[in-house]
């Protein structure tokens, strides 16, 4: 399973690579990283249909995670990939917008990695 993680904090890459160390080693999961909404879109353009799951932060400078979600769900993929939103602002408003735009799940920071692993396994 290929997962694209979108977050403006670059250390997220190291963190995910270590948290999913075993899964990556056993080739159950493969990760790609983008550090802005714009980067994520260009990655998706170049690697069409590769990523089956996208994990995106909402609060990023420039294109926000919600805008990215809108682009992905409306324009890019048929069938669209699963998109999970992650945010530090776990408020009702963000949650509603994410759901309206078609997010498949909504997580609040700090991310509970064991919970995330369980969710990813059910999708895979």
């Amino acid at each position, binding site marked *: 399973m290929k997962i694209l993680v979108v977050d403006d*904090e670059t*250390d997220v890459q*190291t*963190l995910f690579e*270590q*948290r999913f*160390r075993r899964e990556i080693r056993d080739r159950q999961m493969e990760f790609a990283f983008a550090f802005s909404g714009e980067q994520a879109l260009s990655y998706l353009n170049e690697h069409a249909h590769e990523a089956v799951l996208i994990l995106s932060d909402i*609060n990023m*400078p*420039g294109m*926000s995670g919600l805008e990215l979600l809108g682009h992905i769900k409306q324009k890019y993929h048929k069938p669209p990939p699963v998109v999970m939103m992650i945010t*530090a*602002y776990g*408020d009702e*408003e*963000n949650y509603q917008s994410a759901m309206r735009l078609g997010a498949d799940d909504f997580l609040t*920071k*700090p*991310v509970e*990695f064991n919970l995330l692993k369980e969710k990813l396994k059910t999708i895979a």
Partner: protein
Amino acid sequence: MKFRTNLILLLFFPVFADAQHLPDSLRNAYVNAPDDITQYNIGKYLYDYYEESNIDSAFYYAQQCLQLARKNNEVLAEAYYMDNTAYQLIGLGKYAEALQYVLDVFKIVEDPKNERQSSWQLFSRPYHGSNRLLLLAYTHHMFAIIMRETQNTEQEILHYKEARKIAIEIKYPVRQMLASMNLGRSYTTVNKLDSALLYETEAEQMTLKSDYKKYLGQVYVQLGIIHAEKNNPSLSLEYFHKGVAISKEQNNMSGLSNSYFFLGQYFLARGDKDSALFYSMQSLQTIKQLGVVRWYRVNLGTVYESVYRAYKMRNQTDSLLKYQELTLLVKDSLYRSRIKNLTAFQAVTLNEQLRLQNVEKDKISYQNSIRTRVFLGSTGVLLLLAFIFYRNNRQKQKANTRLEKTLSELKATQSQLIQSEKMASLGELTAGIAHEIQNPLNFVNNFSEVSNELIDEMNAELNKGDINEAKAIAHDVKQNLEKINHHGKRADAIVKGMLQHSRAGSGQKEPTDINALCDEYLRLAYHGLRAKDKTFNAKFETAFDETIGKINVLPQDLGRVILNLINNAFYAVTERKKLQQPGYEPAVTVRTQKNNGVVLITIRDNGTGIPEKVLDKIFQPFFTTKPTGLGTGLGLSLSYDIITKGHGGQLQVETEEGKFTSFTITLPYKP
């Protein structure tokens, strides 16, 4: 009639002096009083009882007595309760209304015609001299308190002295004692400790000789503070304890909360964790009984801060966080209301100034008409005219003196507003800071957890004998520890930055990394706005000249300017985005550049721009285009002063309405 009232009071006195709580029967007696004068006398008693123990009740009875006196045309009694109303209003932070009352009382008591306009009793000590002059002293005292609470120390001292002078002339020792008591505090404020001690000791001696000891607690607190400043801690501690005892006895909650508060401060300064917490908590309990007081020195905000600092010293994380949050919350709301109240206060002083200017104008037109008559009239009139000119001139001089006075008051208010603006911007930052700290903390937690798992795996590999794999894991653990350290430092820098922002500033220039400063405030401003307004979003970019290195600036002040300009930029792009122009992408850019002996910092936004007709006003104090309540109108004028006067630099603006605004800070730079 008077006899009966006194009897009622005498009957009740022992009961509630012990119980600390007023029995309902006295309030019933007030409601069911047979006539106005009896009701006034009971109301007066109730006011005195609540004056320093509950602000809302005190305000209520001051208003009641005022109405009763007004209804019965007891002019001086009315004036007396206007002063008392003003006193409670100051405690509530409503300086403008208080000032209006006090100015009105001045008009009444400065008029000798009102000498005998009252038969009702005013002050709690019976007085048989001129009640009007005693009231004049009292009104000067009240005016001085307004000046104190709005940080106008010069005027404050002047008016206490006037009050004291009158009190001595008319031989009313209690009034003199109260003026001296407050002068002790004023002189402590300006750090003239010998004068402070002289006045405060006078107040102490006079109180000890008198049977009026209501304010002895406050006198002891001030003596404690003065002795602490004079490096005499044991004496200071003794006075604070005496302050507690006597304030309790006198049911003076104000004095009691002050005594506890300064005991708390005393032990905080000495690192005595248990006592610091105990007295701060006592102070908190007492101040809550007083109601929502906004006294500048001891209020709910300063008391919460004291409790928070005590918990911090004890390393009690849960309580620490709770009170830290309460401190920020209460202080934030107090500062907001303080800005509002000071602005209203400023408006009243401004009105007074305008009124005086109008008096001036009227006088000039009056003079002109007289000149015309002189031209037509005979020389005999000239003589009379000379006299009129002479008199006008004298009046003009008087008006000038008052104008100058009002102006100096205005200046003082302005400096106070500037301090409030600094605090308000800290409040705005709080949300951004919380978010900025949350991110690094998440990393610290995550990387330490994952390292723990890695160590288990490494041990397993070692047991299996796979040294290479174990080494690879050890390498990862080391990398994680570096990450933890990096994010810990990041959080540390944010907290340090926050502390720096709230500090008044040492006034010393320090070598500062301009790029780091810009980056820090850009992120704080962005996340602060983002946390306040969930829909807010904008692209921000930085273009830093890495060759700048460190240059000598006032870091807090310059940070404030950058924060202000960035906040304005984000505001402008948000406003333009509301216009929903197709294809509009909000963007804010911060650029630094080193150039021939100067460093340039440019903050550019593609927002609404500044209309040409207001462009020459934007650096003026109190000018703002934001809706009421959203801006103080001081941000840019303060920024301008910091850059030009504080750094000898320049602040320039380039703008096109509807397209962009670009502010450039130019700082002289010595390599």
